[in-house]
Structure formats: C-alpha cells, structure tokens
C-alpha cells in the first residue's frame, strides 16, 4: 500500500527547474533527513517535502494514535508537515539531528492541537513553541553535538533489555505517566521508575552524578 504510493510521487515542475535533485528519503540515514529539511529551507523543494512526508507522515500518524488522538491523527500529520515547511529555515544540522527536530515539531504540534481543542483546560498565555523550544534554537552558546548523540543512542538502544525498552517507549511516546505505565504492566511504580532510570543511564542520556 505504502510502496505503491511512493511510486506515484510527481515532482512539481516549477520547483524542479530551480532545485538540485532532492535526496531520496528511503535510506533514512540521519544525513538524508537533514538534507531533505535543508532542501525545503533553501529551495522550497516540494519533492524533498514529499519524500519527507512519505517517510514521516505514517509515523506521525502512528504517534497520534498511540497518544489517543485517533480522530485527529491526520490533522496532526497536516500540522506537523506545515510546521516543518514553515520552520525549516531554523533547522541547523550542527545543532540537532533531523529526526530529533521532527520529533520536537511533532510533540509541539500535538500539544498545540490539544490546547486549541481545549482538551487541556486552563492554559497559560505563553505559546507552545516558547515553552518547548526546538532543539538547536535555545542554546547558541552550547556546541552540543546532538546528531552524534542520536547516533550513539540508536546503537545502544538495541542493547537494552526488552523490558527497559518497552517502559521507556511507553513513557515517551504514549503520553503515559510513570504511574499509568506501572498500572498497565501490573508493576510497582518503583520498578517502572528504576527501569526508566537504568535505560536512560545505559543510553547515556543521564549520568551517574546526576542521580542525586
């Protein structure tokens, strides 16, 4: 189903005349994702935009469904893609990996959509994009190699015991509090917390000295 869609990608002529050939997204390497975002930023490259959509649209939809936004899942896909288009110029591959940046855009779009739908009542007047600033935009002084970090995390994620990996994915992608994950898995809250902590340590997301 998805493959057949990929084959009907029709580049829009006016863009193709002015842009270099866009990178293919199918390999999904971190560099490819970054190049696609840059092509959108610099050339307003619609083919790059479509390639990114084919890779990430169905993932954004999965994320929405996991978050319980079943009826608004495709609305979220639209919001995220529009935001990728509009904010691409602020992407800087030296400060953030492409998938990290898209994740942050998606998270913010989800929060924003829920705020607009009033499903989260009692909001502050401060806009979502200021409360949760995108990676790379908040810290000009820190030369932090986030793209490199993502690569290390990807490698060590495979070495995590399955139960640690499950718990971290649930807390992170399913909008579940530690308590709710504990209830779902019939585990004591302390066990869930320690699995999360161990996973974060193994992935070198947090360090021993920070555990005070």
């Amino acid at each position: 189903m998805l493959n057949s869609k990929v084959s009907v990608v029709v580049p829009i002529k006016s863009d193709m005349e002015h842009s270099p050939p866009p990178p293919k997204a199918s390999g999904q390497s971190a560099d490819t994702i970054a190049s696609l975002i840059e092509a959108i930023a610099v050339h307003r490259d619609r083919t790059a935009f479509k390639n990114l959509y084919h890779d990430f649209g169905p993932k954004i939809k999965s994320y929405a469904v996991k978050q319980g936004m079943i009826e608004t899942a495709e609305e979220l896909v639209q919001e995220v893609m529009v935001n990728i288009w509009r904010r691409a110029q602020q992407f800087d591959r030296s400060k953030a990996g492409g998938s990290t940046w898209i994740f942050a855009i998606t998270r913010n779009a989800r929060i924003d959509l829920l705020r607009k739908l009033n499903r989260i009542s009692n909001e502050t007047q401060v806009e979502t994009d200021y409360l949760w600033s995108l990676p790379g935009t908040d810290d000009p002084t820190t030369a932090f190699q986030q793209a490199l970090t993502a690569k290390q995390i990807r490698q060590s994620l495979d070495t995590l015991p399955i139960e640690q990996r499950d718990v971290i994915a649930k807390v992170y992608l399913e909008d579940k509090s530690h308590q709710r994950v504990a209830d779902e898995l019939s585990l004591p809250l302390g066990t869930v917390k320690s699995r999360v902590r161990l996973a974060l340590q193994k992935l070198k997301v947090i360090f021993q000295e920070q555990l005070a």
Partner: protein
Amino acid sequence: MTNYHPDNEVLLEFSAGTVSSHFALCVSVHLKYCKQCRETVARMQALGGVLFEELPSTPVSDGLFDRILDRVEHYGDRQVESEAEPLSLLKGWLPDGLKNLSWRKQWFKLSEVVLEVPKSGNWRLALQRISAGGIAPLHGHHGREVTVVLQGGFSDESGVYNEGDFIICDGENKHRPQAFRNEDCICLTFLEAPVSLEGPVGRWIERFKGLFGTKEPLTS
C-alpha cells in the same frame, strides 16, 4: 550556577510533552539558567527522535499530501526566536522585567503579583517577593508548588536556594522560607492548589481565607 534542578523524571516528562503548560513554563525558565539541564533535555529529545523513527507506519489518506500543499501555499516562514534571557518567557506580563510591578502585600514581608489564575479551579501562577531578610509564614501544600528563583535567594528547612534554582514542594513538605539578608528575593511560583497556612496564627487566618490573596491576575 544553579544547584537545585528538576529531577530526571520531570525532565523526561517535559521532553515528552506530557506536563501542563504552566509546569512547562517553570521548567523552561529554569532551563534558561541551567546549561546542565539544557543538555540533558537535548539528549532526551535525541532519544525521542530515535524512538520516533522506529515507530511503525500507519497508512495515511490518499489526498492528505495535496491538502498539506494547499496549506503551505498560504504560509510564509515562521521564525520563533528563543531568547537566552531567563525573563524573556515572562515578558508578556513583565515588559520592564522585575521593575515597576504592582506588588500586593500578603504578609508582613511577603508580597505577590498574580500572573494567571483560572476561571474555575485553584491553580495560581504568580511572582512572590520576600523582602530582604524577611520570613514567609510556615505553610504546607495541598498540591505541588513549583518555585523558580528569579532574583536573590532564600533558605528553608531543606536547603539554600539561589537564582535559577527549581524547587518542587508537595503535601509532605511544610516550610518557612527566609530571604537572604542583602536582597529582596523574587520567585516565579506555580501552585497546583492553594497553600495551607500552619501554626496557631496561620490556622486562624485559614478560617478567613477571603482576606488573604487576590483572584485578579495582572493585566499588562
């Protein structure tokens, strides 16, 4: 240099976007002060990106991309410039920073500027000021109280807090904050539920709640 930080559980829930917007505001103000937590959040977001990439694909509707293209036709760029200055997040309420504010006295050395209160419900976003050397009344908490020190510092039974420090108190803690002697202490506080005054005088005052505090947010 801050010494009190949100714990990793809080930073993880912040990165995942599962905390309330007011709570996120307090975390974000702390992040402006704290490089260590900014880097932790950056790594947590990188983890989010990796987990996100590994999500399965759910088929999307046929016409969806065309609808997206229709929409981008009408939009220009959107630049959100995030400023390093910690008070930048509060500038909607504080155009002059911490100057020229209408402080309302709450207790002998304690005053407050309400930033936001709900139409219904009990939470309260405010600035609180303890005058130099002053002591706030002993109080407990019905819900969480999140505090970020914006100017000066204070101490209580559990520690000494400086500019940028992030502190969460809940129902288990009762405390009596005292400002440093040399400077007024100003904090951003988010109360999920009202505090309860403790001690003989405090409990007496609790019975006259109407006299204490204001429900009118600052408008600017």
